[in-house]
């Protein structure tokens, strides 16, 4: 039945657990993603957050945008910190030191915190199987420090440490496939999401939280500042990423793949790339390379989804 859910914005929780007044850039789709995620999780949640944009914009002493218990410790260790919160609570509840209560333990970080510096702690936490959710907000570069490349920066994107130039077409490596790395840990739930598809995102985060054991949700978070687009176009570019199959929306429940959204008409990648300042230097030949890779990767996902049926 869950495949036929009907969504209405009226059914979404109206309370805000990540409040307005924070210091995100105009049009920040990552802040929007955090807001949706926190609506999905509700108040009975503990958040451990990595250093990065969302941490900096939401917690300037003595202010906070968080209505749930929230901890920031360092850049690379939010998965380990939330492991500790979960272990501590579990032990204290079992020993009767504090009353039993269902709490969502959620770690959050950007793509740098997830795919680069925090890969070890994340892998460790997923492997140990804590009852937790890890959410990666992927804006495809180190935006907080000024748009430097990460291993999650896509092929061809120009950043401040992978600049396009006479002898360079920008990032010359392929984007690290974090959701697949999470799947390889054999955890019960992995999903991709995007705030341009808020109901899909909310449902996936809820599922991730309900599932016992470790879950991983990878959220494509459009960054107008870093992608060199207009702030009002953040939602549009999220849609284009998904409709061009650059970033397919799917979930993997106990190893079974399912596409949660199929584009009505698969757009060519040029529709997604054009207008983004970070890609404007690309030649037709390079764009064709990107198109070929997107097609191959999408076929792989489709094949895995079919195998699951």
């Amino acid at each position, binding site marked *: 039945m869950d495949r036929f859910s009907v969504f209405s914005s009226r059914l979404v929780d109206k309370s805000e657990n990540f409040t307005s007044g924070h210091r995100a850039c105009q049009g920040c789709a990552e802040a929007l993603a955090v807001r949706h995620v926190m609506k999905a999780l509700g108040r009975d949640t503990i958040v451990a957050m990595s250093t990065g944009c969302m941490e900096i914009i939401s917690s*300037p*002493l003595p202010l906070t945008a*968080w209505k749930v218990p929230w901890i920031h410790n360092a850049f690379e260790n939010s998965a380990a*910190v*939330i492991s500790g*919160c979960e272990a501590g609570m579990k032990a204290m509840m079992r020993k009767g030191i504090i009353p039993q209560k269902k709490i969502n333990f959620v770690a959050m970080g950007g793509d740098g915190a997830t795919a680069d510096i925090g890969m070890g702690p994340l*892998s460790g936490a997923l492997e140990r199987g804590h009852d937790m959710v890890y959410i990666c907000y992927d804006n495809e570069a180190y935006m907080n420090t000024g748009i430097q490349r990460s291993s999650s920066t896509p092929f061809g994107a120009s950043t401040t440490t992978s600049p396009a130039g006479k002898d360079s077409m920008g990032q010359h490596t392929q984007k690290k496939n974090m959701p697949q790395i999470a799947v390889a840990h054999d955890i019960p739930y992995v999903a991709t999401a995007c705030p341009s598809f808020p109901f899909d995102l909310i449902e996936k985060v809820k599922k991730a939280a309900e599932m016992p054991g470790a879950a991983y949700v990878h959220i494509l978070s459009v960054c107008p500042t870093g992608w060199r687009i207009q702030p009002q176009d953040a939602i549009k570019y999220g849609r284009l990423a998904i409709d061009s199959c650059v970033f397919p929306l799917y979930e993997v429940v106990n190893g079974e793949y399912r596409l949660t959204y199929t584009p009505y008409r698969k757009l060519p990648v040029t529709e997604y790339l054009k207008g983004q300042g970070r890609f404007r230097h690309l030649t037709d030949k390079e764009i064709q390379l990107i198109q070929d890779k997107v097609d191959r990767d999408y076929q792989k996902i489709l094949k895995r989804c079919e195998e699951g049926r």
Partner: protein
Amino acid sequence: MAKVRKGIEVSIAMADAVAQANVDVIAAYPITPQTHIVEHLAEIVANGELDAEFVPVDSEHSAMSVCCGSAAVGARTFTSTSSQGLALMAEIFIISAAMRLPIVMALANRSLSSPLSIWNDHTDTMLVRDAGWIHIFVENGQESYDNIFTAFRIAEDPEVMLPVAVNFDGFILTHMIEPIEYEDDETIAAYLPKFQMKNTLHPDHPVSMGCFGMPEIYTEAQMQRESAIRESYPVILKAWDEWGKLTGRHYRPVETYRTEDADYCIVTMGSYGETAMEVVDSLRQEGEKVGVVKIRLWRPFPNEEFCRAVLGKKSLVVLDRAISFGGPGGPVASELRSALYQKEGAPVIVNTVAGLAGRDVSRNDFRKIILEGKAKAQRGETEGFDLYGLRG
């Protein structure tokens, strides 16, 4: 556990102490020479003798991160490490103190690479000297066992709320079998009340922890840390006093041996204090007026107690177990020189670094260090330091 005296490896006794302290979470990554502690704790938890979560982490960095998360929800938390492990976790080690998370660590002191060495000295702990943790040094197995309890008592005191490291020498203590007196569980329960933290992470009373600070607030935040560790001093004294009343085993920030009428003293930190006392006994028989001063509390530094112990002496031979490369002397000697500077009746200081990476410092070596130190002091050679036993 009943009150009993038994011959046991110091690491095992420390693990037993952690179990008696009824911790909720243990997160540690194995590293020589700390391994026996975590192995034994894993076994205790696996056998159901302690109801706790044993988190087998992916690195020391994650170990300290897990400890931060666990202490932040109000769970009694223990970890243990050494050397490279401490260096790897240094980032979070510092943050844990800044966030006032009362974690207790058994720090099995070991040298740092390179060259890689698994043996004992104090290079690792000096790396984190200024991290804001309370540092206690112990001399033998009994002190190691005892100070697990005092460490929790100090760390969790609402007036303190700081992490505490119990420094004990790798191999010299970790792998040594000694007679150790165990206290019964009732005594421990009376001494170590249930841990109750004021602000914890819980949905019923949400708080934000670890926010970022602009220049307008950072200085004040640092001052709070400084006040916290300074004000922990009387709490530490009280914790040791009460332990002494319960068990008859007393601890002081600075301990002295045969110093009352001594002209000069050898200053040590850690297990070398035991050898020093033996050597001083034999030197006394030869008419040397020498005593031993042992620094037990390294942070907060016991300035007054130290000065009281040594002012009026002619000289101090300070034994360091680490080099501060390019610095004015070993880290302990530098500290003591600064503590005594411009004080009336301050003894002159001669500094010797010895026993790096487990190189043996025998009774004979001690004898030489003490007598040569005395002679150097008389000749006024008090600059820098000597590296004892350097070959070639």
